[in-house]
């Protein structure tokens, strides 16, 4: 395992995921969240939980990169893209379960589907493009 490349891929995956989440959830979906404000933490409460949001991103990026590095381990943006789509669909299953038990709107569910598929696919492409196994590095 190429730890140096793996760590670099993890940092890039984390940074992309954070930036994507900020644009998608913080800007694009902001009106949808405001329309369902009673379901979410108020702004000040959210801000006080911001470190936990960062921690969650770091955990997902670490697991996502670690799984690719240890089980796929190929230097290919295309393979990474496909890997990301698989993880994205897995995440969509979780969104469906949440929709079944939480009073989310259909628009929020569809936007979460799109977010997970796009975010993980691009994350996978980035990780696949950056990671090189030791014998190929």
């Amino acid at each position, binding site marked *: 395992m190429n730890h140096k490349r793996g760590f670099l891929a993890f940092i890039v995956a984390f940074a992309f995921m954070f930036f994507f989440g900020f644009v998608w959830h913080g800007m694009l979906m902001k009106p949808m969240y405001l329309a369902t404000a009673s379901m979410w933490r108020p702004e000040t409460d959210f801000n006080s939980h911001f470190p936990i949001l960062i921690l969650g991103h770091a955990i997902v990026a670490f697991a996502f990169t670690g799984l690719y590095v*240890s*089980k796929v381990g190929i230097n290919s943006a295309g393979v990474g893209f496909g890997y990301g789509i698989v993880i994205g669909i*897995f995440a969509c*299953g979780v*969104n469906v379960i949440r929709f079944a038990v939480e*009073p989310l709107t259909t628009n929020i569910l569809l936007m979460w589907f799109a977010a997970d598929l796009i975010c993980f696919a691009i994350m996978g492409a980035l990780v696949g493009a950056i990671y090189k196994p030791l014998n190929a590095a």
Partner: protein
Amino acid sequence: MNLKKFFIAFIAAFVFVFVYEWVFHGIILKDSYAQMSALMRPQAEVNFPLLIVGQLVGAFFFTMIFVRGFGSGGGVAGGFR
């Protein structure tokens, strides 16, 4: 890929997830969810078929990831590495 074994593993994963989530979320955490009922659908509005679909999707792709990427064995440590 051994499709027959894959299918059996997928069904076993789905059944386990269904039972586990029912016990964990439906029994153990029931009181906690009741205290935050504004954030949950009322019992009558819970979309059970969609819940099953979500669990099926999760179990299918969980199994697929295992089958595709964890063929080298090595027990618990092998799966974790």
